[in-house]
C-alpha cells in the first residue's frame, strides 16, 4: 500500500516549504533548481498548465493532475483530482501537494480557501488567447517552479516556433478559407464556436476565417445560419472512432449538407487539447490546422 508513504509527505512538505521558503528566497533558482526549490510535490490543474510543466522538464515533480490534463500521455497515470471547476478540498490535500498550479477559473472558491488555509502555495495561471498569453503562462509557471531559465528558453523556443508558424500560415484575405468549428452535433443540433473562443483564435492564427462571427462563445446555431456562414471547411475535435462513418453522418445533417464543406467533404479533426490548450504546442496546432486547411487533399 502506498498509504504509509503518503502519510508523512504532506507534513514533510509543509515543514520543507516553511524551512526552504526562508533560505530559498535570496537563492537563485539557477543553482540546481530541483534540490533547492521547495516545491517537490506539484499538483497541476488545467491541460495547458500540465503541458507547460512537462515542457519545462519538470514532469517528475507532478504528484497529481486534474481531469482536463491529458498531455503528455503518461500524465494519465497520475491521480486525478477531478474537474478543475469542482475540486474537493480534501481530495486535493490528500495528494500532498506543496504547490498548486491552476489555470484561471479553478474552483470552487470555498475549496481554494480551505486549501490555502492548509499552507499550500497556490498559483493561478491566467487564460490565454494570444501568443503573448502563452509566453506569460510559461513565465508564471517557470517562476513558480523555480526554473525561470528553463522557462525563458522554452518561451523563446515557443515564440520562434509560433511566429514562424504564424508567418507561414499568413495568406491574403481573399485566399482564406471559412472555417466552422463544430463543438458537437448532438441529435443533429450543431453547437458551433462564435468569437472570443480559443477555437476562434486558433482558426485565425492558422490563416483561416471563422465562419461564425455573429455571437460570442459556443452556441447552438440554427440550420439556416450554418448556410449563411458558408463554411469551406468544418473543424471538429477528434474523439476517436470511425471517421468515415462519422463524416457520412456529419455531412448528412441537412444544415451542413448544402455547404461547400459538405460538397467537398472537407472536415478537419484535431486533438481537443492540442487545438484549444494554448500551451507550448500551439505552434504545432497552428501548423497542423494550416496544413489541413490548405494542403491539397489526398
Amino acid at each position, binding site marked *: 500500500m502506498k498509504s504509509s508513504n503518503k502519510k508523512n509527505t*504532506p507534513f514533510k512538505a509543509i515543514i520543507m516549504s516553511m524551512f526552504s521558503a526562508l533560505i530559498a528566497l535570496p537563492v537563485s533558482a539557477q543553482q540546481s533548481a530541483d534540490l533547492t526549490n521547495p516545491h517537490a510535490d506539484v499538483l497541476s490543474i488545467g491541460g495547458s498548465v500540465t503541458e507547460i510543466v512537462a515542457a519545462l522538464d519538470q514532469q517528475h515533480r507532478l504528484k497529481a493532475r486534474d481531469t482536463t490534463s491529458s498531455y503528455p500521455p503518461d500524465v494519465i497515470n497520475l491521480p*486525478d483530482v477531478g474537474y478543475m471547476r*469542482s475540486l*474537493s478540498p480534501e481530495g486535493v490535500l*490528500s495528494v500532498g501537494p506543496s504547490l498548486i498550479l491552476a489555470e484561471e477559473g479553478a474552483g470552487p472558491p470555498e475549496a481554494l480557501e480551505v486549501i490555502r488555509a492548509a499552507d499550500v502555495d497556490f498559483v493561478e495561471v491566467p487564460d490565454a488567447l494570444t501568443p503573448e498569453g502563452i509566453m506569460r503562462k510559461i513565465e508564471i509557471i517557470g517562476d513558480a517552479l523555480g526554473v525561470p531559465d528553463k522557462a525563458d528558453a522554452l518561451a523563446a523556443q515557443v515564440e520562434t516556433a509560433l511566429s514562424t508558424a504564424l508567418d507561414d500560415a499568413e495568406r491574403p484575405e481573399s485566399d482564406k478559407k471559412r472555417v466552422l468549428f463544430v463543438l458537437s452535433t448532438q441529435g443533429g443540433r450543431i453547437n458551433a464556436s462564435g468569437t472570443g473562443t480559443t477555437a476562434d483564435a486558433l482558426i485565425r492564427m492558422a490563416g483561416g476565417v471563422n465562419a461564425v462571427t455573429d455571437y460570442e462563445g459556443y*452556441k447552438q446555431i440554427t440550420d439556416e445560419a450554418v448556410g449563411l456562414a458558408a463554411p469551406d471547411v468544418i473543424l471538429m475535435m477528434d474523439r476517436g472512432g470511425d471517421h468515415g462513418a462519422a463524416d457520412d453522418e456529419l455531412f448528412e445533417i441537412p444544415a451542413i449538407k448544402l455547404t461547400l464543406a459538405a460538397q467537398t467533404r472537407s472536415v478537419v479533426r484535431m486533438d481537443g487539447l492540442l487545438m484549444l490548450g494554448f500551451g507550448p504546442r500551439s505552434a504545432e496546432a497552428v501548423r497542423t490546422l494550416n496544413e489541413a486547411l490548405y494542403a491539397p487533399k489526398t
Partner: protein
Amino acid sequence: MTEIDAVPRDRLSHARTWHWILAGALALACIASLQVGATDVALSTMLAKLAKGEALSQMERVVLFDIRLPRLVMGVLVGAALAVSGAAMQGLFRNPLADPGIVGVGAGAGLGAILAIVLGALLPVWMIDLTGNQLVPFAAFLGGWGSTLLLYRVSTRHGRTSVATMLLAGIALGALAGALSGILVYIADDRQLRDLTFWGLGSLAGASWAKVLSAGPLILLSISAALMLGRGLNGLALGEATAAHIGIDVQRMKSIAILAVAGATGAAVAVSGGIGFIGIVVPHLLRLASGPDHRTLLLNSALLGAILLILADVIARVVIAPAELPIGIVTAVLGAPVFLWILLKRRGLVEL
C-alpha cells in the same frame, strides 16, 4: 355485542423505539464520516494523539476542522431538511410521491443559481463584494423561497389555500422557470454550463463554517416547526374537511408546513445544490417500517435523512478519491435500486 378479543397493535411506541435506533445509527455515521476521507487523516489516530497530549499537525487540523466537520454538520442539516420536507409535503398533499419540488423550491432555486452563475459577473461591484463567494447559494435560496411564497400567494384566496391550485400553479411555475433557465443556458459559456451541471447534481464539497452558520439556523428553525405538525398531518390524511372537524386548524397548519418546507429546502438546496431522492425515499421507507403516523414519522425522517446523506457523502468522496462524485449521483445510484426493490417486494402496500 362483539367481544373485544383483538389487541390493537401499537405501532406508535414501536416507531418511538426507532427514534433511539436511528439516533444511534446517526452517531455511528457521524463517526464514520469524520474517520474516512481522501487523506489518511483519521479521527481515531487524532484522538489517540490528543490523549497522549501530542499536538495535531496543521494538515490534520485543516482536514478535520475545516473540511470534514463543517461538511458533516452540513450533511446532517441538509439530509434532515430534505427528508422532513419530503414527509411534510407528502402529508400535506396526501400523496406519497409529493416532494418539496411540488411547491416550486427546486425550480426556483435552480433558476436563482443559474442567474447567479451566468449573470453574476454583471452585478455591480458592491453587490459582488457583499455576497462574496456566496452569491450562488444566496441566489438559489432567494429563488427557492421566493417561488414558494409566490405559489402560496396565488393559491390562497379568502384565507384558504387550495392545495390543488398550488400543485397546478407549481407545474406552470416550473415550466416558466425552466424556460428562463433555458434562455440563460443559451447565454452561458461552456464553463458556466459545467458549473450548472455540477450544481444540479448537488455536492457537500463546498461546505464551510460560513455556510453552516448562514443556512443552519434557518434549517433548524424550519425543521422544528415541521416537527410540530405531526398531529395535524395525521388528521389531514382524512381530508381537509375532516381534519377541521377533528379540531385541526387546517389553514394555519398548511401555512406552517409550506413556510417550513420553503425555509428548510430552500436553505438546503442553496448550500448543497440539487440532491434528489432523499425526500421521497426516506419517509417511504419509514412508513413501511413503522407506519404512517406523522408524530413519529417526521422526527424519524430527519434522523434517517441525515444518516443517508452523510453516508452517501462518505461514498461520494472516497470512491474516486482524490476526485469526488457529485452526491446526487450517489443518492440516486444507491437509492433507486433499493427503492425499486422495496416497491416490488411490498407491492401490496404500495398500492394503498
